[in-house]
């Protein structure tokens, strides 16, 4: 497989993670704002997806090695994409959001949503950079 294929495959992994986090964030905000909130079953599914996505970010390398398609990025690497001045996100923040999301989307705080948005900003930029590399 060429470097191009690897870049595409990495782009797809980033994009998957981005979608899981961004979809959850959008849905949670709709629930909090009361704008056409989705049915409970859909909310529960999104909570599970969010929890899984956050777990992927907090994976240790040992755990990654066992996955069929391991995530290549660590939280540190994702956050490197965030421009200076953005709020910092620690593994503890991620763990706290995971705990809260167990209580449903409505249990997430505005700070949690900001944290998720910081991550999706980073993943969106990183996906764009990788995708352009593949296009060249």
């Amino acid at each position, binding site marked *: *497989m*060429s*470097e*191009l*294929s*690897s870049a*595409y*495959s990495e*782009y*797809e992994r980033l*994009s998957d993670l*981005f*979608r899981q986090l*961004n*979809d959850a*964030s*959008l849905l949670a*905000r*709709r629930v909090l*704002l009361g*704008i*056409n909130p989705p049915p409970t079953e859909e909310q529960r599914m999104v909570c599970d997806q969010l929890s899984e996505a956050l777990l992927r970010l907090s994976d240790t*390398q*040992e755990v*990654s*090695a*066992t*996955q*069929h*398609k*391991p*995530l*290549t990025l660590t939280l540190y690497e994702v956050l490197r994409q965030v421009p200076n001045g953005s709020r910092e996100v620690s593994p503890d923040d991620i763990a706290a959001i995971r705990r809260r999301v167990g209580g449903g989307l409505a249990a997430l705080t505005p700070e949690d*949503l900001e944290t998720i*948005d910081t991550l*999706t*900003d980073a993943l*969106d930029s990183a*996906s*764009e950079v990788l*995708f352009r590399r593949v*296009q060249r």
Partner: protein
Amino acid sequence: MIDFLVGASAVLAARGNEIVNKLEEVTDVPSTVTDHCRRVIQKTKRHLQEIETHQSNLQQLQDSLLRGGLPFSKAAPVVKGYIKSYHDLRRKIDAIEEFFAGHITRFSKSDEFLTRTAATIWREARLPGDSPVAIASTSDYFCTLASLGIVFAPPNDVQKLLILPDLYHEFGHLLHETSSLFSNKPRFTSALVDYIYELEQQARRYSRPLPANLTNEICTNWAAYWAEEVACDTLAARLAGPAFGWCNLHLCIRHPKIYSSTKHPADAARSRHIFRVLKRGGWSKEVGEMEQRWEQYIHTLRPQKPSHYDDFHPDELFIAVMEDVEDSISGSLPTYKPAQDTVANLLNMAWENFLQDPVNYPEWEKPMVEELWRNQRI
């Protein structure tokens, strides 16, 4: 801003619909291509559905703002989220258009030759699932976008057979995408953990300082990229036999990365591993000849090993991957056997002829390729 984003989404949806229409109209292509088109159409339609949902949600948000019940400060993060979703969906549509639909609508005779050859090899090797669409167009070497079921090959019109063994390696990536190869990897997982632990212990015992992040880098390279590459090399060497070994040496000369490694292990380590798999398959005599040529090549170039090269390329990880692959395909996939009327046999004959008489090889290959082409169209 919301109106503008809804408008941009409508343009994106129109592009998606155009792709669907074009792919639905594709005719006169091998059935494999039609099957993949059907899958990509479904994928595109799912993206179109998402775009529609986002447009509707944005419209509701706009209505709430206009009614005055929602301040823009509260709506702004939601709008930002939809802008990022739009970026993501645009990249998805771009990828389908550029890396799949565009090639299908310009499907050429060379593409047909490659796609049909790929299908024949896939069938002969009894691989699970569908063979890929293969396109003769890339400025790079072989390249696979597994999620789209497409492989790109160099657009060579001469000496086709010498590079075709690499298709077997690319097939490994397609199988990996569907978890049919190397999805269960107990030996590799345990070997990687043991190796990193041992490396750190050794460094302490012998006071050999390791650079910060070295073990992390070794772990990431192997877990994220190299194990898959080594699995694909193992599969290709088993299915294509010595032809894959020769093809690899050819590639090492063509795009030399003897001791340098990025998303693949270095050429020297990969070659060593391919020799190992071939020897295990009973091809010791042929491997002896390959090793002799490899040593001459290294002796002539005298490249310098970078520091920590050996730390990155321990034999035990290559062997663990090989054994995991052997376990996952054992009994289900054939190993290469000469003297059968197969493409693998033709590729091995091609390499034998090339090694005996490289100058006149093109004259030998031309009628062989023509016959292969005729057989596939029957």
